[in-house]
């Protein structure tokens, strides 16, 4: 027997955001992006094209990178969401954040939260990515500023740190000197 549909209005869901249980209520047409930014006050996730083409709204859903502008909030019920706000541990930046800051891989910074999360998911499944692996993992994230090279170098540097290697950025990356 078909159950009756819930009445129109607000949807009420529980989910986990950055490790904390959260309950939130919102109209069902809202995207996860809108719920995060407007209902949960997490404005680190950026709002770009809303068409799935730029990647700046990327968050992790159960550890997988997804576009929060294309996922309805109601579809995140009972699941784990990670946003850029969940990357640092207290005052300590995530190695990816540190590498991006050190190498100037963030310029205007608008693409950065999405790229950090896409890169984090990559390093989670592949601690030693090739340049090609990084390019593929970040193919859905547009950056208008950096030209991507510094982003690739920062991901490589963070990957080395996360493997426990004592890596230093190339001089060229920092000072432009060869």
């Amino acid at each position, binding site marked *: 027997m078909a159950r009756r549909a819930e009445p129109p209005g607000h949807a009420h869901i529980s989910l986990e955001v950055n490790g904390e249980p959260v309950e939130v209520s919102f109209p069902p047409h809202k995207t996860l992006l809108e719920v995060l930014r407007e209902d949960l006050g997490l404005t680190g996730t950026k709002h770009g094209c809303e068409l799935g083409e730029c990647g700046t709204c990327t968050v992790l859903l159960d550890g997988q*990178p997804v576009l929060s502008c294309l996922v309805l909030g109601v579809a995140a019920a009972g699941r784990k969401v990670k946003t850029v706000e969940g990357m640092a541990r207290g005052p300590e930046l995530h190695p990816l954040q540190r590498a991006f800051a050190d190498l100037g891989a963030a310029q205007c910074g608008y693409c950065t939260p999405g790229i950090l999360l896409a890169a984090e998911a990559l390093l989670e499944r592949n601690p030693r990515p090739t340049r090609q692996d990084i390019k593929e993992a970040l*193919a859905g994230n547009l950056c208008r500023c950096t030209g991507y090279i510094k982003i690739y170098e920062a991901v490589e540097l963070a990957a080395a740190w996360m493997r426990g290697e004592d890596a230093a950025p190339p001089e060229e990356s920092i000072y432009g000197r060869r």
Partner: protein
Amino acid sequence: MDSLGFHRASSFEEAAGLLHSGAAVLAGGTDLVPLLKDGLVKPSLLVFIGDIPGAASISVTRRGGARIGAAAKLTDIANNPGVRRLFPALAEACRSVGTLQIRNVATLGGNLCQRPRCWYYRSGIACFKSGGESCPARDGLDEALAILGGGPCWAVHPSDPAVALLALDAKITIRRADGSVRETSLADFYCLPSDRLDRETRLDAGEIVERITVPARYAGSPQRYAKVTQRAAWDFALVSAAVVWEKRRFRPRIALGGVAPRPWLLDTARLSDPPVSRRGRDPTAWELWAIRTAEQALRGSRALSSNGYKIELAKNLIRRTLLEWRRV
């Protein structure tokens, strides 16, 4: 939009029962959500199928073929070891879709039922697809439009997986509102704009795709999915081709994407037999056959003002793909 209802279905039977007029199926949402936001579809109820137990299951065996739940994610299909080994054309087609972020959410059922990507339609310009009386693209920016099967709408079908599944002769299991089930071939699942303009499939009101089945006949047979895009990073196909060889008779089933308002299956009866003899394959004869097959495949195609390049592109893609089997 403020009166939009939402229901989390617990079975396909229940979901189909809720699909009265005004209700829409919500799977991953990667196609539906932008259409909803832009007011191009205005459902009163969303029936969410993503939490139905077993709806995302993928099971593959050499004997039984592949059974894929409508809510299976494209990432999971592309990475499934059985699909990669036995149906590599399908794995390649799923991997070629959009970006990782999209494939992590997009479902196979949603991919097969996605709406046209025509720029005019998506921008909210009145046209046949949106209930209007003309096709502005036909006389406007027409380089992405169909070279086969077009008119009165000329938008091409955007799905990659559908092209591979068509060459693999996949079957679709459909649940109806009264709880009964019907099965159709993927070839009969799609229609042309000359049959029906409001949608691209023959799904009736109250019907929902529950499962996609790939017959065992083509499990492990030589096969390939090839896609040409305007840029390398990610894009919809300008033209794509799936080639799947029948093991016993050694004839190819060829389907094309990006060329018609539906995934386009070539009529094998119209194609010459490949030059295979007991002594093996003569590479020159094979190449001549590939060129002839490409010509035969595009017979009947028609260019509008600026999409004629697709005819040559499709011929070259077919020829190039068939040449991969020039030597054994």
